[in-house]
């Protein structure tokens, strides 16, 4: 029973990280109907920036804040410079551009920081609280804070409303004076910033290396699909579900060495049997 509880709680901790990355994916998907395959590498790169600052002597939380701001600006820049020219292009073109971006970020990180694993510090106390370690509890809290800030932003601020409007109905939004292009860039900035937080939280658990996020991204895909890829709150719930499922399946069923296959099975299972996910809209195409 004790292991079971422990597995569930640490599943919730990683689940929170998956939920954040899934949220970032959904944010871009809602606005542009594109799945950002480079989301994981963007987060990885941000985490390296944070590590560079921490190693240079910047206190953890200052480095944390700076990384979030730099990632936000970087995300906006990527949207403006790389994605904007192919925004209206066919799916294949956009996916290839995303893969190109993924490769460039991965290669750059490997080039600058080498491919060796690096430990990443945690700001939370070492000791454990009952069934859960300090870092796990801390990262659940951070995830919940980030997600509630997002909720408040989208629910209660005029800018959040404008962003939702631009995502749901670009034409009408443009007619009421919303700068849709700028909203898209903001969405990318936010997605990059959320990804950066997730990267910094997960790097302490799995060590930092340029390929760190490929597994996390896979679980985030699974989370977004479980929750319904067009529903941010679904993505959040999906993240926690997938995190717990991963841990339980990894511990009781398939063993830790097949954990990624769990994500593959979840992804294909959801796509086959419930493509809209738990909370997503069922898409009907008119012929």
């Amino acid at each position: 029973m004790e292991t079971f509880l422990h597995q569930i709680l640490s599943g919730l901790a990683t689940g929170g990280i998956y939920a954040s990355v899934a949220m970032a994916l959904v944010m871009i998907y809602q606005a542009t109907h594109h799945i950002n395959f480079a989301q994981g590498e963007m987060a990885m790169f941000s985490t390296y920036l944070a590590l560079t600052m921490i190693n240079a002597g910047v206190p953890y939380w200052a480095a944390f804040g700076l990384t979030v701001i730099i990632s936000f600006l970087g995300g906006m820049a990527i949207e403006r410079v790389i994605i904007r020219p192919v925004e209206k292009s066919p799916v294949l073109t956009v996916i290839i551009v995303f893969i190109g971006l993924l490769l460039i970020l991965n290669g750059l990180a490997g080039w600058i920081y080498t491919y060796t694993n690096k430990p990443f510090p945690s700001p939370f106390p070492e000791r454990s609280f009952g069934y859960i370690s300090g870092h796990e509890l801390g990262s659940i809290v951070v995830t919940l804070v980030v997600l509630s800030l997002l909720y408040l932003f989208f629910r209660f601020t005029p800018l959040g409303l404008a962003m939702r409007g631009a995502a749901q109905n670009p034409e009408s939004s443009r007619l009421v004076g919303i700068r849709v292009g700028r909203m898209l860039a903001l969405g990318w900035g936010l997605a990059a910033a959320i990804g950066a937080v997730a990267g910094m939280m997960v790097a302490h658990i799995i060590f930092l290396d340029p390929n760190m996020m490929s597994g996390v991204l896979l679980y985030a895909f699974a989370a977004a699909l479980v929750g319904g890829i067009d529903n941010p709150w679904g993505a959040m719930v999906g993240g926690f579900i997938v995190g717990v499922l991963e841990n339980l399946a990894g511990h009781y069923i398939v063993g830790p060495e097949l954990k990624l296959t769990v994500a593959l099975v979840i992804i294909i299972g959801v796509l086959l049997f419930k493509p809209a996910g738990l909370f997503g809209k069922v898409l009907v195409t008119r012929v």
Partner: protein
Amino acid sequence: MMNPIKAATEKSAARGDTGPKPHAGALIALLAIACVVPFFLKGYHHLVLTQMLVYAIAILGLNILTGYNGQISLGHGAFYAIGAYTAAIMMDKFNLPYWSTIPAAGAICLSVGFLFGLPALRLAGHYLALATFALAVAVPQLLKYKGIEQWTGGVQGINILKPDPPFGLKITADLWLYFFTLAITIIMFVLAYNLLRGRIGRALVAIRDQPIAAEAMGINLAMYKSLTFGVSALYTGVAGALGAIVIQYVAPDSFTPFLSISILVGVVVGGLATLSGALYGAAFVQFAPNIAEKVVGIPPQIVYGLFLIGFMYIMPLGVAWFIHVARRKLLSRQPAKS
């Protein structure tokens, strides 16, 4: 709109131009070069050329799926891995001759690809890319799985022996392997040419460009799409088997997502929906990373990434179409001048 190829091909088709076509003269010249030049090269270069041909087959396979049929796969490395492991297991555990592994790898990948294609049918565009991407990421872990270790050799992988030239031929094993691979490459290209130029090829392109109209005209969408997935996997599996024999070694960590992406890079750079593109793409994938790393000092990922994005901006149809269009322009200008 589903596919970048459509817009360009329609523009060409309006001018009575159906795209890059094999040219008898160029083909004979190419074949002559491929047969004669290796005799003037040293052992290591034979391996490099052979590996390039292996890439060409894999890229051709993905191009049948992505270029002609419009289905996106980011996970073809998985089929390459299945082909490679089929060859290695047959040679190492069952002592079967190396040539018998090629059709076996093809058959196994055809069925696995067909089965994977069945559910993939329901996934258009992004979702198919996502599912295949997940496959690519999961493959190394699956290959390391303890339950199949007695066959796959786990993390260590399998070593295999280089085949000797048959009939007492007085050439090195590397050169023999080159000619063996060349023969299979030619067979695979001829098969693809025949498959794609007729009814089936037209059906694939129709599905890519106008799926609803294609279905209304009696094309069995489900069947064709899954079969295309199977055939595409077959090509990549054959390439994988050859690749294993060439490198004499298979291990889980050779089949990372980077392999799948390399095959995609080959398709994009070479030219979507062209046969000759597979050759240009293979040359790029084989030589560009090395040149970049040794001469310029840039990691291959960055080169691939820059080329992928650059090609999407500047020439989304790749080198083969670029050469084709340039040639047409040059040829059509000459009579006007004289």
